[in-house]
């Protein structure tokens, strides 16, 4: 834990650009962000091109062999800290992490003869924070934008709710606030904004935690340590090591989106 915590502190600086999303960020973090920006000018630019030359390329590795069936710790934690409402029905549903049967998560695999382990596997799915995000490409207001480190962010104050990003996302990762979510949040976490009706939202790799040097909440709470998070451009990072030693797959890579969530099967 300590080791990974140090790693996160290392990348924290660069990822501490949550201010652009208009989110609440403690003053001291804002200051350090300001310092960092002056040092690394251009980091705040809302780019859209593929930035393989960027120093930091954040990605997640999900080890499906470790991920326990029936466990929803990551989902619960995410819902709790991100003020995700529970409407009790699927039509208006908002979800950042959830589980899908393997054949639904990997529709393109079309493999009828799956191993027993995978056949009944429920796979955690998130926003892939694509390297080449189609949602960012189509957004008419840049309310969804990509940071230098790859995270695809949402500006909930700018989003006009046209839902073009939802049509463009090949992964069904985006949720829309079909109605006011606030009455449906059990306990509001005051450290994270609630959303208004009429805007789109999704997983942002816990940018608010990264800016404080913490790993994404799902990674931290997973009792099986099935999730790893880190910098793909650093050959020494946990994620790179895992990818080097294991066979991994991604969801719909053939579409050219370059999804940044890797699954070990």
């Amino acid at each position: 834990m300590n080791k990974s915590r140090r790693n996160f502190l290392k990348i924290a600086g660069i990822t501490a650009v949550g201010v652009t999303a208009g989110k609440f960020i403690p003053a001291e973090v804002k200051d350090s962000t300001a310092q960092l920006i002056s040092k690394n000018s251009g980091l705040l630019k809302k780019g859209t091109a593929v930035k393989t030359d960027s120093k930091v390329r954040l990605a997640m590795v999900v080890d499906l062999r470790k991920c326990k069936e029936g466990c929803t710790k990551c989902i619960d934690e995410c819902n709790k800290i991100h003020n995700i409402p529970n409407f009790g029905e699927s039509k208006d549903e908002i979800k950042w992490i959830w589980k899908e049967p393997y054949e639904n998560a990997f529709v393109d695999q079309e493999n009828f003869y799956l191993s027993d382990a995978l056949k009944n596997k429920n796979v955690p799915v998130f926003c892939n924070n694509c390297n080449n995000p189609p949602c960012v490409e189509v957004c008419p207001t840049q309310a969804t934008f990509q940071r230098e480190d790859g995270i695809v962010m949402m500006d909930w104050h700018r989003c006009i709710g046209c839902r073009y990003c939802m049509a463009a996302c090949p992964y069904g990762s985006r949720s829309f606030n079909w109605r006011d979510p606030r009455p449906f949040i059990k306990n509001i976490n005051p450290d994270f904004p609630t959303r208004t009706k009429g805007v789109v939202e999704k997983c942002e790799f816990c940018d608010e935690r990264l800016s404080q040097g913490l790993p994404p909440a799902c990674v931290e709470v997973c009792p099986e340590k099935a999730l790893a998070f880190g910098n793909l451009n650093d050959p020494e990072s946990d994620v790179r090591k895992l990818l080097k030693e294991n066979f991994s797959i991604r969801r719909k890579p053939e579409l050219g989106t370059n999804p940044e969530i890797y699954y070990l099967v």
Partner: protein
Amino acid sequence: MLEYALKGNKKYWSWLFLLAIIIAAGFYFYMKQFNYGLGITGMSRNISWGLYIAQFTFIVGVAASAVMVVLPYYLHDYKAFGKITILGEFLAIASIIMCILFVTVDLGQPMRVANIFLYPTFHSLMFWDVLALSGYLILNVIITRVTLDAEHKSIAPPKWIRVVIIISIPWAVSIHTVTAFLFAGLAGRPFWLTAILAPRFLASAFSAGPALLVILCLVLRRLTKFDPGEQALKKLGLIITYAMCLNVFFILMEFFTTFYSGIPDHVSHMQYLYEGLDGKARLVPWMWTSAFLSIVSLLFLIIPKLRNNNKILFITSIIVFLSIWIDKGLGLVITGFIPTPFGKVVQYWPTIPESFISLGIWAIGIFLISIFYKIALSIRREIEV
């Protein structure tokens, strides 16, 4: 010129009053939607665009179709269209206003719509579509205003207006092309990911739009002294025939590529449309109705004797319009989302508020067409002022 819209007989005012009631009902439901959110519609996390965007897509086609009368009249000096060109242009104006309204009611945060202009985003097709549509609206407002004004004063229209009219011709093509690009550029939605989408949009637009114009002309001829002229009607019938043939041909091409290649991602959408998927088949009867209507319309159009009979042409035009409305205004947009990116079949059907809001916008369009045509025909003294 607007004063002509304010004078009229009892029939005219009752008609406008009836439309106003429908508009008021739509507005009432829109206020409900404004308060509650878009959850009041049948749209969901999985099917995030519904009737509104589908209507928008269909009506952009109607707007673009004005070019089918403008082009022959101004570019080829086809005099027979002299009386209906202005009707086509006014139809375009009313349609674009409907398009703007349909997109606006679809927004989750309509008060922030200015963000599109405050943060112009060139890599978003939505930005270009907004530009294309508003440009087309402005062009047609200028054209109708200037040409009608000249007619009103019995003088020749200024020469520069010809330039504006010529610009409006490719512009009309552009609005429907860019609207097709909204859909056809999305890698994750195989149903729309087809290079023939824009040509298909244009072909369907150039059949449904002139069909609507035929309907309007014949209704006007019945109710007023207005006469579009036999030659104009015949020519419109011919335009519809060619466009409808192309439209059906393009749809068949989609069928070929989809089913012969057999790529599951592409086949599944078509399956949902025409035979149902996972036992869910809400659109199937609609799509077969559309297919049946288009075949019937082709028969009525291709046989000259039937096409050149105005009574039959009137019915054929209604059939064409309905067939394309189902295909484009119902099937095309919704089915892009079915099955979902997870391969699941989630269905959609508009709710009552959603339907009333859509109906209200249609009523606004018809209201606008009514007063526009009233003005145009009053100036030409084809109806009693």
